């Protein structure tokens, strides 16, 4: 026999239904919320593929010879370099680089072959346009490795006494895509959970509907909990979109356990939701809620979480500040699991940091959200 639902359950269902209606009737916002992850992933992905293009090489070869050609061929036959021009003088090299016609210059010293044959060593110079430092590092890394390999070959196979071997782990193609996926996920989940939740609670305060609910027997925690359900759902949809797009379209493999990725993301969603509740208790109107979640929460997420600037390169003060940002821990954990394939126990620190922040904010938010308006 089916028992009729208790009044509390009925109430909770009614509230949840109402929240979903709010969301589905605001078509524009819904479109933005669902479309944003797609647009961000595609945009970032597009930016990366144009960025990870081949380097255009300008070659200066005053006295071409067999050894020289072997080095050049080896470089140009790789996926990363293509010949754009052959310069006749050092000033022509400089001009090509300055005009942006080439990214890398390969400059052989005069009589390269002769010196190599006579002295057993000769010099080749690599000039890289460092306007884009990330790319420059990538190009010079690849080029050095290729030239080193060519040198070994020229030396007749005998390995040099000491040579650093560079192997690009986790990201052999050096595709930046790997780094931005966790960043975009962190940003979007934070936006949907924290910003939308806080705005939707504050809207009720502003419209006076919160008063109508508060004078009823409904308990505040129930009003809040019902708000979390749709935004939690929406976040899950967004998370799925991000993961599917990055795996399917960008071809970023999930190195670690997919379960771990989902578990950490769900934890982060809960943390973001508690941030949203907390903001709503502080903000008086929707504008303040937007500003607080936009400026106070989003900006640090973008700047300090490692989405744009790597946390490792930050000055100590900023690095320390970034520890206060939940998204930083989420992004770090995601990078470890998704890209490095680390098992869950290696991200215990991050998980603990997230859980602690979430619990603290939730308690604070519920305590402040009393059932009287003063």
């Amino acid at each position, binding site marked *: 026999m089916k028992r009729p639902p208790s*009044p509390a359950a*009925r*109430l909770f269902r*009614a509230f949840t239904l*109402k929240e979903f*209606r*709010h969301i589905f*009737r*605001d078509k524009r916002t819904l479109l933005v919320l669902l479309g944003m992850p797609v647009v961000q992933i595609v945009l970032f992905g597009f930016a990366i593929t144009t960025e990870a293009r081949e380097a255009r090489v300008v070659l200066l070869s005053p006295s071409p010879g067999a050894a020289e050609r072997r080095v050049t061929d080896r470089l140009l036959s790789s996926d990363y370099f293509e010949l754009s021009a052959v310069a006749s003088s050092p000033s022509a090299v400089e001009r090509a680089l300055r005009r942006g016609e080439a990214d890398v210059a390969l400059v052989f010293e005069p009589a390269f072959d002769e010196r190599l044959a006579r002295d057993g060593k000769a010099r080749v110079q690599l000039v890289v346009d460092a306007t884009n430092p990330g790319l420059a590092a990538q190009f010079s890394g690849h080029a050095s490795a290729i030239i080193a390999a060519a040198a070994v070959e020229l030396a007749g196979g005998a390995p040099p006494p000491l040579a650093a071997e560079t192997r690009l782990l986790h990201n052999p193609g050096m595709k930046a895509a790997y780094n931005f996926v966790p960043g975009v996920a962190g940003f979007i989940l934070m936006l949907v959970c924290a910003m939308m939740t806080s705005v939707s609670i504050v809207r009720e305060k502003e*419209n*006076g*509907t919160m*008063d*109508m*609910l*508060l*004078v*009823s*027997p*409904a308990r505040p925690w129930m009003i809040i909990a019902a708000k979390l359900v749709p935004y939690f759902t929406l976040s899950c949809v967004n998370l799925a979109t991000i993961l599917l797009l990055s795996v399917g379209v960008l071809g970023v493999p999930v190195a670690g356990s997919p379960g771990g990725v989902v578990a950490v993301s769900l934890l982060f969603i809960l943390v973001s939701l508690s941030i949203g509740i907390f903001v709503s208790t502080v903000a008086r109107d929707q504008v303040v809620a937007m500003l607080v979640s936009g400026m106070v929460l989003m900006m640090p997420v973008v700047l300090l979480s490692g989405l744009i600037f790597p946390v490792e390169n930050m000055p100590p003060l900023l690095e320390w500040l970034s520890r206060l940002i939940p998204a930083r821990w989420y992004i770090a954990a995601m990078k470890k699991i998704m890209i490095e394939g680390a098992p869950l126990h290696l991200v215990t620190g991050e998980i603990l940091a997230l859980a602690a922040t979430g619990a603290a904010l939730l308690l604070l938010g519920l305590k402040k959200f009393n059932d*009287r*308006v*003063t």
Partner: protein
Amino acid sequence: MNMATVEIDGIVKRFGTVEALRGVSLSVSRGELFGLIGPDGAGKSTLLRVLATLLPADGGKARVEGMDVEKEYRQIRPRVGYMPARFSLYPDLTVEENLQLFATVFHATVEENYALVREIYEHLLPFKKRRAAALSGGMKQKLALCCALIHAPSVLFLDEPTTGVDPVSREEFWRVLGALKRRGITILVSTPYMDEARLCDRVALVRAGRFLDTGTPTEIVERHGRMIWAARGHDMPALLADLRAHPFVESCFAFGDWHHATPSPGASLARLREAMEALGHREVEIRETPPCIEDCFIRFASCQA
């Protein structure tokens, strides 16, 4: 045995340095239709919010249905229907959905209490699938009243339900309040329209956080204690100025198509008319009339100030 449904004793409420309520006391009996009459900023909304248990008072005691608003607010809430001054329903939900939601919030259903709202809700039936945002002002008020009523409260607190509403819809609204009163619901309603006082059983004239007077409209008019001279002529603005300047007139205000003058002691109506005609006023009519609530408000307010 005390039958008061609402009892207020010396309620004080401050917002920063502003004293919104300066110690007001009141007792409303079961089934009474009580009006809080006064301009914006008088403290009407604050008092209703204290009674609706939304706002803790800074001093004094208030009881609703015998329960303390401070300590027993949770038990009070299911008994009370509150309608804030501003439209406070969900604009993106339909008429039907709003009503359904507020029924559920109070653990009630629309079906069990439909009889209570039927008369009002029937006007809304043609629009029940329409979003609340798209309703006209009068319709919004009706829906808000339905939502405040749907859990069958025993007390209604209505904050300026007729502000900004045209005279026809206002009259209709008061008719509905009369019907609810007959069902035994105690109603405390605030309004800035002084002429609505006559539609209440008793009223309190509210100004600057205090009650100027409390009683039935008749009692209040009696307490005013004086007759008013109503005057009119062909040039009303000039007549107003001349009446004010005359020693027979203590004070004079425009009241629709008449001017209401409070005569000085010993003044003669006939001689005032002659004086006005001597000043060139034509078609002068002056007659004695009992004061209305607005006259009383003006007089009591000037005494307070």
